[in-house]
């Protein structure tokens, strides 16, 4: 092969695979600092000086300031406990015990972390207002239509994310794959 077409071929392949890999990997739980625990993804080192390059890139692209570890820890789920992607048109039950924390919040958001419902409607549950049905830590229903009990509106969006944030918790520094977190079960789908 002659020089010019060969060079163009190499540059083309380089640009496409390089930028393609970046677009595919950033924001999908890549990087040494990301933990997957059941359906939840945690990046405890995000926003600290020890953050890995992937989580730094995610932070900059989202334009956010991640929670400091002394403050709390955020866990994000984009799939349920069976591994299927979370769809806001379906009904989910988030239940199980939550690691020890002063309090926690459960939020529904879109894939770009924009709110799913307009202001004035419930966007999050705090552990202070959960109606405890049993001794179990949490039992929240995520559904597009109103439900009895602890109902978190999902707005019926297809690209739903659930975010569990634990505040003032020792788990922020000790979190591991063995940490017990609530499960996300799909109850019904239209």
């Amino acid at each position, binding site marked *: 092969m002659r020089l010019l077409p060969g060079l163009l071929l190499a540059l083309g392949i380089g640009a496409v695979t*390089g930028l393609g890999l970046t677009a595919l990997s950033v924001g999908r739980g890549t990087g040494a600092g990301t933990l997957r625990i059941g359906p939840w993804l945690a990046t405890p080192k995000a*926003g600290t000086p020890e953050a890995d390059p992937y989580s730094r*890139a995610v*932070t*900059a692209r989202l*334009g*956010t300031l991640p929670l400091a570890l002394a*403050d709390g820890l955020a866990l994000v789920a984009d799939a349920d406990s069976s591994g299927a992607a979370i769809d806001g048109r379906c009904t989910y039950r988030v239940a199980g015990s939550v690691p020890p924390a002063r309090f926690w919040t459960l939020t529904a958001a879109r894939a770009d972390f*924009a709110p799913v419902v307009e202001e004035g409607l419930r966007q*999050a549950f705090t552990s202070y207002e959960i109606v405890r049905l049993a001794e179990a830590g949490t039992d929240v229903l995520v559904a597009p239509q109103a439900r009895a009990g602890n109902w978190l509106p999902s707005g019926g969006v297809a690209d739903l994310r659930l975010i569990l944030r634990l505040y003032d918790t020792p788990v922020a520094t000790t979190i591991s794959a063995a940490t017990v977190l609530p499960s996300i079960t799909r109850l019904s789908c239209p």
Partner: protein
Amino acid sequence: MSSIASRLARPFRRVLGALPWVIAGLLLGVAVHILSVFALPRLAPDDARARLAEVTAVNRLTTLSGGGSVVLPLADPAFETAVCRFDLSAGPLHVRAPVTPHYTAVALYTATGIAFGAINDRAATRRTLDLFVVTQSQRRELSTDEDETAADNLILVSPTTEGFVLIRALAVQPSLGPLIREQLAAQSLCEILTPEQAPATQ
């Protein structure tokens, strides 16, 4: 016989000739990937710094309405937030946050969004949470004249001259949001100290 072999060999040889270029391209791809991941924090046009520069003034506290989740994605909507973009070149910064009924936290970030310090209301000894943010050289000046163990002040050293302070308070129910926001706006403080006001050390 030999003509068939040579006819088959010609496209094969062309593929073989392109192979080094393909391999070079793939190696280049790996390099481009690594470089672009490292460059993203510097190139992202819409990072926290750019977002907050639009809505805040330097060394002045701004309360973000409606949970602040629109200005800062991934911010908890259950919280009310006040932001202060600081510049320590004029002197040390005094940050004060009220202790709200359930939870208040003060987090400090560098201009590039790296958290270098955070405290919550558990550290409060009074009804407010007071802390001082200084640069490395301002820290040295502070500790030269007096015994610092006598001081009851929280002093945090910022690795950069510019950065952000985030004061966040929990509203346990959405209806309590406006109340908490009012308390944040009325009782929080973010101001540069004049030399006479420097953290009291007696």
